[in-house]
C-alpha cells in the first residue's frame, strides 16, 4: 500500500515540499474544519435547544412521563351548537400538523381562519357546514391497568369563527 500524505513537513533535495505532503496538510485542514465544524454545530444546537432542522436539540422522549397528561383536540361547531371532533388523517405529514393546534391562539385572525379551514379540508369536512372551530385542551389521568384516560377538565384555548 502506498502511504501518500502520511508524512508531513519533509522536503526534497531542492527544498520544495513534496506534493503528497502538501495534499496531506490540505486534507488535514479540511478534515479538522469539516469534523469540528459539524460537531460544533450539532453540539451548539443541542446546548441552545435550537430547532432549525437539521439543527435540533435531539430531545427524544427526554421528559418523564407519568399517569397524568393532556390532549389538544380540534372541534368543529355546527350552526345548532353541536360539536364534532375533527379527526386528521393518519399519515405522518398531515397528522403531525396537530402539533400546531396549541399555538393557534397566538396567530393573527387571518392565519387562524386559514388554518381552521385547512384542517377541515384535510379532515374531509366542508367548512360551509360549520360556524366555528375550537381548540380544546383536556387534562387526563391514565389508569395503569385498563389504560383508560379519565378526563378531569377541558379548557377551550381558542374559538375561531368561520
Amino acid at each position, binding site marked *: 500500500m502506498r502511504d*501518500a500524505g502520511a508524512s508531513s513537513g519533509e522536503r526534497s533535495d531542492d527544498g520544495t515540499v513534496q506534493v503528497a505532503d502538501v495534499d496531506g496538510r490540505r486534507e488535514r485542514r479540511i478534515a479538522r474544519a469539516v469534523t469540528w465544524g459539524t460537531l460544533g454545530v450539532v453540539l451548539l444546537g443541542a446546548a441552545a435547544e435550537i430547532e432549525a432542522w437539521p439543527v435540533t436539540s435531539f430531545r427524544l422522549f427526554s421528559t418523564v412521563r407519568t399517569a397524568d397528561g393532556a390532549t389538544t383536540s380540534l372541534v368543529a361547531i355546527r350552526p345548532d351548537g353541536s360539536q364534532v371532533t375533527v379527526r386528521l388523517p393518519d399519515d405522518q405529514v398531515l397528522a403531525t400538523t396537530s402539533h400546531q393546534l396549541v399555538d393557534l391562539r397566538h396567530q393573527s385572525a387571518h392565519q387562524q381562519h386559514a388554518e381552521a379551514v385547512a384542517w377541515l379540508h384535510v379532515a374531509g369536512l366542508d367548512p360551509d357546514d360549520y360556524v366555528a372551530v375550537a381548540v380544546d385542551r383536556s387534562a387526563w389521568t391514565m389508569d395503569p391497568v385498563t389504560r383508560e384516560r379519565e378526563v378531569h377538565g377541558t379548557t377551550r384555548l381558542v374559538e375561531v369563527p368561520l
Partner: protein
Amino acid sequence: MTTTPAPTPTGTTTPAPADGGRVARFVRGIDARLTAPGPGFRLLEVHTLVALVIGLRLVARDWSAIAERPAALTDGLTFVSWLPPHVPDRFLVALAVIGVGGVGLVVARRRAQLGFVVAWTAYAVLCALWGSSGKVMHNDVMTVWVGFVLLFARVPRRGQDDERTVAFGWPPRAALAVLAVVYWLTGVQKLRHSGIEWALSDNMSWILRQGGDAPASGLGHWVADHVLIAGALATGALLLELTAPVWLAWRRTRAPFALAVAVMHTSIWLFLGLDYSAWVLTAAAVAVPMSLAPTRRLGDFRGFGTISGRG
C-alpha cells in the same frame, strides 16, 4: 513532559507534545486519529453504504404526500423554510428520482462524489419539507448529519482503493464521530431535562402505556406492567446513548454498538410504532465497516466480492 515519540494508530510516529497537559494531549490524540491516513476501500465502503441508506429512504416514502399539506399548515423552521409553503407533487417526485439517480452514480463509481452530493441534497430537502408540519422530526436527522460530513470526502477512483491517504482516512472517522456525538446528545438531553429519574422511575412504563398502535403493543404493555423490566429497558437505553462515544472509539466494540442500537430501535418500533430504521441503518453503515481490521474489507466475510470490487 513526554520526550519519546508517540505511535499513531497507523504505526507512524509523530513528535511528542511539547507540554504535558492532559487535555492538550487528549486533543492532539483525537486529532492524530482523525487525520491519520486511511485506506481508500474503507472510505468507499462507508460512502457507498450511507448512500444506499439514503437511496432506501428516498424510495421507501411517498414524498408526494407533502403536496397534500395545505400551505396554511406548513410550519417549523428548517434550512428550506425559504421555499414556498406549498410545493407541487411533481417537483417532489422529481427530486426523489434525481436523488436516487445520485445514489446510482455512487454505486456505479461514476462521479461518485457528485452523485453523493446530489443524493444527499435531494434527501435533506425532502426530509425538511416532510417535517414542516409543526413537529420536529428526528427520523432522518442522523443520516443527514452523518451524510453531511461525507459530502466533503474525496472518494477514491478505480485503482486507488488500496492507497492510504489522509483524504481517504478522515471521512469515515468523522462520520463515526458524528454518530457518537448524536447518540450521546440524546442521552444527555434525557439527563438534562429529567435527571436520573428518566431511568429509575416508572417513566418507561408510562411511555409504553401511552404509545400508539404498534406491531407488538401488547408485549409493550406487558413490559410496562413489570416495573423492573421496564426500568432495565430505560436504564439500558440511557446507558447505551451516554456511552456511545466509548463504544465507537474502539474498533472491536463498534459492531456490537451497531447491533445494540438495532435492538433498541427495533424494540421502540415494536412497542411504540416509531420508525427509527434510518438510525439503525446509518449506524450499521458506518460502524460495521469501521469495526473491521485495517486491512480487512467488508466483502471479505462474503463469498461474492467487495464493494470496491477487489479482484
